[in-house]
């Protein structure tokens, strides 16, 4: 099958090690943030922001999606984003669940 595929542009070992170091660095920042007394919303934004960046780095470089054709990215990622957003439709219920609870 691989005969039909064009030669993918590959990253170098140096690039991958850089990504690995960046991922480790962001993990250390996350652990540090966990012990800072930040408001919950800010903490969530920081931690999830860093996690999304880490996930993007893993998908783009380790999983080679950056080196694949754009059509593969467009088939996979927007669908995931859309379905995840749709799941959030239920989420506001959780905020009022405490008041709805039977005493």
């Amino acid at each position, binding site marked *: 099958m691989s005969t039909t595929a064009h030669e993918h542009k590959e990253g170098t070992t140096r690039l991958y090690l850089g990504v690995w170091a960046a991922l480790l660095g962001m993990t250390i920042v996350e652990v540090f943030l966990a012990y800072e007394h930040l408001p919950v919303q800010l903490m969530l934004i920081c931690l999830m922001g860093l996690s999304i960046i880490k996930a993007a780095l893993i998908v783009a470089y380790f999983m080679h999606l950056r080196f694949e*054709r754009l059509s593969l990215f467009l088939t996979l990622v927007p669908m995931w984003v859309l379905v995840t957003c749709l799941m959030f439709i239920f989420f506001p219920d959780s905020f009022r669940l405490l008041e709805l609870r039977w005493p």
Partner: protein
Amino acid sequence: MSSAGQQAGVSSWEGGGSPFSINSKKLGMWLFIISDALTFTGVLMAYSYVRVASEEWPTPFHMWPSIVVSSIMTFCLLTSSITMVMAVTAAKQGRVQAAARWIHFTMLGGVAFLLLHANEWRELIHEGLRPFENPWGTPMFGATFFSLTGLHMLHVTIGVVLLGIIAAGFKRGRYTADHVEISGLYWHFVDLVWMFIFPLVYLLSVSME
């Protein structure tokens, strides 16, 4: 966007081309990964939902051992990902022994992760954590913790077994470099999921005492 993989003059929509320019096995793995990503999204969202809707969410994770050990577990998974990248590179260059060796390092990272995680479970169970009761607060904490981390551990276990089979088969010439790359995709995905479980489950429940 190049037109490589398509026959001259034939559009992707008319068939006869390869719109993704990847082999069918790799496309299959990507489709599995994206559906599995939705499974984990659903489970993580259920966890967040229960957490927001609960009054006293437990914060049982002390710096030592929980946070230090889970950070080491993160290091194990991240490092096993980079060794998997090395394995794929070696496999594509036809260096069979080197590829098998890198896959074995990757499996070692996975096994270290599993052992540390199992020990973490054992300690929490020893402290009284059960699926529907615990000494710290909301009873549902145990159910969400065990199902989330358990589902992830199951994925890591399957990954280690898969890599073992692929490494042995690649050495014997049964599997190709494509198989190594595709099993690598799965392994990186398992790593990726942990990047969300670690902050959401552990770092947002650290004990400040």
